[in-house]
């Protein structure tokens, strides 16, 4: 039902859609969070992600389980990167299958919104003249 992964290797969206695909589903929603090349017009060279791994995995698992109970969805893949990411690389992928599209979209959004609130993963933006830990919720 669930596939929760935290890895320092590149993420694969095809793998995520393949994992959630099943004959009873009518749709798959997928969200891919990617590394943007600038923040407030300041060029970003790359990102660095750090995780408190055991807790991050546990929190990701909780979010996915919660999504299964809140929405009529079938399978969820929740993958997140750690380490150094270049511009354009995927930092997070969430794929959700459901009999009907509305639940798939809703669950996908729920997972990414919750992930940004509770999962202990931190992103550092590397600029030409320095680096800054991003505080998503200051």
């Amino acid at each position, binding site marked *: 039902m669930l596939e929760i992964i935290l890895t320092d290797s590149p993420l694969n969206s095809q793998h995520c859609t393949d994992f959630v695909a099943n004959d009873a589903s009518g749709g798959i929603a997928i969200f891919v*969070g990617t590394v943007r090349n600038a923040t407030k017009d300041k060029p970003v060279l790359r990102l660095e*992600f*750090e*995780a*408190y791994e*055991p*807790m*991050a995995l*546990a929190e990701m698992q909780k979010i996915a389980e919660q999504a299964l109970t809140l929405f009529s969805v079938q399978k969820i893949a929740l993958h*997140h990167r750690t380490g150094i990411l270049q511009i354009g690389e995927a*930092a*997070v992928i969430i794929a959700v299958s459901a009999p009907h599209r509305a639940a798939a979209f809703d669950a996908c959004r729920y997972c*990414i919104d919750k*992930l*940004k*609130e*509770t*999962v*202990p*993963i*931190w*992103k*550092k933006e590397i600029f030409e003249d320095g680096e800054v*830990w*991003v*505080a*998503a*919720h*200051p």
Partner: protein
Amino acid sequence: MKINLLSFGVAKDIIGHRFMDWELPEGATVADLRTQLIERFPRLEALASVRMAVNSEYAHEEHLLEANDEVALIPPVSGG
């Protein structure tokens, strides 16, 4: 009693170590630990919010700590 302190992100930069042993009196709570940490590392107080996790679970301020607990300092998260 001794607890194992873990720091991440900006909290790690302030404290200077990812792992640290920390001495606390028996019966200390998360709030007591927070007070001690801010005394030793005043820059922690300036952070918008630092949550604490005990043995990989978010903990309330009144949570009672036990010897050998793993306590993590969780500055505002920014995954995704």
